[in-house]
């Protein structure tokens, strides 16, 4: 029994040691002076040391375990241990221990004194627990907390927290800096913190809305969002955009409100500036004395200015739902039926090519009156060159068009009047040309009659007068036939030709006359003259007239009897010049008047008719001084405009 109990007792002691040795902790015991009486084997194995090395060194101040405790921790651990050894206080420290492989881990060391019946400390028992993982977790948590608080302070926004009833609990640093006050500063007597904060910070004009909105959110739990002006510490108000949402617990009760608020002052001002400039632009467009229209790239109108809306008398939206496009509806309802096809075609062309559009047409006003408008459109393109919009301006030019029409009618009637006037001139001129020989014939006839009736009759004189009668009658007949030729040809269609050949013909016709008068003709016709539409015979007559005038002008004058004929193109006319070296023209203003002549024998129809002919061709005839002497008659004929243009 004894053996058994002793064996049992031994077994108990061994078991205790085994238990201690296999516990996931290190166990130790010291005497009252702190010398180790026991160190569990797992401890020694962990530290890679022996018990004796842990005891105090010869130098009393140093402990043997100094070598296994982290140098940063040793001083306070040693100080605490000494204090406990003297005072008997509980020993609790946390420090790092060096493992056998040299790695440090955190441990919690706890020791309790054991006392005898007199209460005198007999020794210490303690455990050392590995708390390294716990420590690491704590450190990580601390780091995260630090980062979070840094984040909260560093985000370029205001962060705040409210209690469920709306009392401020927390402002982040930026908010504190902005407001110049912290949550604690909102504690004012008689009012809530929220009221105090609103009074101090929110713009008076926004305060009521702010409080109302916030209170409603607090009551209903809806998210809070609004813009308001917040007073900065320097007294200036800044626009803020603020949002807040509640944090709820598992039961759905609101625990806190988290708010975020950022300074949107610059943005608000920029927006305001933008809005103002947009408003100004809109006002500009709306008040411009023109009708403005904007259309999508496909031509569909998207905007119309007030002037255009008023002119048309309906709104753009009224066009929708008709089944047709807005553009088609607009054109069909507004453009005059006679102009519609042209307008549509031109629009389609511009829309497909992107070319600017410009057209005059009649547009129906709200009251049903068609008025002339001029519409111009140009494409607005983006940076890539793609059309993003068509901008259209439409001007009411009804007054101008009607005035132009009136002017055109007046010009037409004026042209008719001047045509009538030149007809009158022509007939007076013809009468003059015919009356001269007729008067001579009548006078000669009477003279002849008297010679024959005389006693005795003077046959010789009678014969002379009869010869003159025949001569003058022929001359009158010639005039008449020339006039008939003139009128016959004037109704014939004009042919397109170059003037060169006619000039040559006229020159040939007059060559004999020129030679007789010892006049040299110099003809200079520019090559490749453009075509001119003219009546060959009429223009030939003008040329012959002018050439003969030139020859006659030199018959009494000058050693240099040169007649120059020059044909050249000048701008959009062909200009013909006939210059002589005669005495020049004494009355340049009068020579084109009918009946004005400086010559003994009026030739043909005279310069008045030449001018009539040239003007009927749309040209001009005038006279200039020839240098160094003489006159230069110049007439122009317009170059034929191609029918295709």
């Amino acid at each position, binding site marked *: 029994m004894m053996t058994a109990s002793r064996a049992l007792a031994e077994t108990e002691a061994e078991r205790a040691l085994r238990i201690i040795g296999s516990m996931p902790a290190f166990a130790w015991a010291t005497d009252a002076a702190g010398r180790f009486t026991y160190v569990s084997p797992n401890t020694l194995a962990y530290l890679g040391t022996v018990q004796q090395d842990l005891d105090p060194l010869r130098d009393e101040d140093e402990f043997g375990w100094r070598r296994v405790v982290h140098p940063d921790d040793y001083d306070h651990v040693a100080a605490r241990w000494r204090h406990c050894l003297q005072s008997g206080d509980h020993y609790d420290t946390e420090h790092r221990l060096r493992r056998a492989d040299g790695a440090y881990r955190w441990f919690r060391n706890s020791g309790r004194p054991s006392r005898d019946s007199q209460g005198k400390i007999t020794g210490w028992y303690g455990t050392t627990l590995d708390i390294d993982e716990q420590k690491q977790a704590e450190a990580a948590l601390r780091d995260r907390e630090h980062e979070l608080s840094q984040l909260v302070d560093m985000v370029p926004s205001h962060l705040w927290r409210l209690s469920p009833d709306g009392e401020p609990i927390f402002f982040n640093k930026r908010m504190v800096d902005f407001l110049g006050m912290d949550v604690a500063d909102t504690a004012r007597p008689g009012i809530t913190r929220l009221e105090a904060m609103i009074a101090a910070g929110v713009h008076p004009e926004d305060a009521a809305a702010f409080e109302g909105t916030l209170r409603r959110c607090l009551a209903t739990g809806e998210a809070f969002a609004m813009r308001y002006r917040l007073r900065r510490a320097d007294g200036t108000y800044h626009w803020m955009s603020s949002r807040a949402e509640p944090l709820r617990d598992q039961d759905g009760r609101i625990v806190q409100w988290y708010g975020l608020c950022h300074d949107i002052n610059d943005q608000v001002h920029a927006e305001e500036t933008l809005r103002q400039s947009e408003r100004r632009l809109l006002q500009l467009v709306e008040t411009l004395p023109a009708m403005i229209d904007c259309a999508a790239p496909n031509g569909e109108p998207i905007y119309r200015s007030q002037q255009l809306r008023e002119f048309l008398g309906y709104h753009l939206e009224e066009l929708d739902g008709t089944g047709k496009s807005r553009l088609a509806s607009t054109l069909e309802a507004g453009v005059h039926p006679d102009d519609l096809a042209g307008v549509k075609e031109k629009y389609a062309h511009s829309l497909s090519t992107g070319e600017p559009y410009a057209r005059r047409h009649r547009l129906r006003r709200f009251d049903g009156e068609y008025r002339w408008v001029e519409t111009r459109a140009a494409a607005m393109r983006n940076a890539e060159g793609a059309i993003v919009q068509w901008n259209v301006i439409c001007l009411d030019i009804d007054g101008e068009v009607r005035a132009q029409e009136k002017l055109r009618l007046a010009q037409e009637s004026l042209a008719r009047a001047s045509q009538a006037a030149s007809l009158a001139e022509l007939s007076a001129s013809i009468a003059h040309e015919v009356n001269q020989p007729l008067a001579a014939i009548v*006078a000669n006839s009477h003279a002849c009659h008297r010679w024959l009736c005389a006693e005795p009759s003077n046959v010789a004189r009678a014969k002379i007068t009869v010869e003159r009668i025949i001569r003058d009658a022929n001359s009158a007949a010639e005039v008449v036939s020339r006039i008939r030729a003139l009128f016959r040809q004037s109704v014939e269609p004009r042919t397109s030709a170059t003037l060169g050949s006619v000039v040559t013909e006229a020159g040939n016709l007059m060559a004999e006359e020129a030679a007789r008068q010892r006049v040299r003709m110099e003809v200079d016709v520019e090559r490749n003259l453009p075509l001119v539409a003219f009546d060959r015979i009429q223009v030939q007559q003008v040329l012959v007239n002018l050439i003969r005038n030139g020859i006659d002008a030199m018959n009494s004058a000058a050693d240099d009897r040169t007649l120059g004929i020059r044909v050249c193109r000048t701008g959009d006319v062909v200009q013909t010049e006939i210059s002589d070296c005669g005495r020049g023209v004494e009355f340049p203003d009068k020579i084109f008047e009918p009946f004005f002549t400086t010559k*003994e024998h009026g030739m043909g129809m005279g310069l008045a008719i030449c001018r009539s002919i040239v003007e009927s061709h749309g040209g001009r005839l005038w006279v200039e001084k020839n240098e160094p002497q003489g006159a230069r008659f110049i007439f122009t004929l317009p170059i034929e405009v191609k029918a295709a243009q």
Partner: protein
Amino acid sequence: MTTDDHIVFIVDDDLRIREALSELLEAHGLRAVAYGSAGEYVRAEKPDIPATLILDVELPDINGLELQRQIAEGDHPAIVFITGHGDIPSSVRAIKHGAVDFLTKPFSDDDLMSAVQAGLAQDRQLRLERTEIAALRARYKLLTPREREVLPLVVSGLLNKQAAAELGISEVTLEMHRRNVMQKMAAVSLADLVRMAEKLQIPVAHSRRVGEE
């Protein structure tokens, strides 16, 4: 057949007209001289005998009407205008300024000849008057200054006594001056003297009727 007691001037730029008119006038026994322009006519030496001017309105240098205006100052023959296209304002103006007639071409023999004859008659009459006035002026020049003072008083019908009082001389002296005036002016009667004074355009300075007004 033509005589030298008259001449007809023709101014027309158309040779045919000049020829024909000259021929016609000669056939009527009238002497004619033709000019092609106003300038030629003005510069020409012209005999101082009764004349008529047949003047074309449309002339190369100056218009016939303008020539009429230019020569209106001096003595000039009666003018018969001819024109290729007679317009009323021109004819009215020409006649107003003393033209005998205004004929539109072609004109008849009778019209021309009667106008020419009327022109010659008018010119003869004018010449006669001009001659008479020249003679009167010559006689008037013979009067002394006192006699020139007496003349208007006498023709005004003043009595000798009144005229003498007017001049501050005696009635006898006035009667002497009056006799001399009658003699020098070759007046056969007071009425004759009055007619002469009228032609000389001597103003009647003192009328008995002045006081009656």
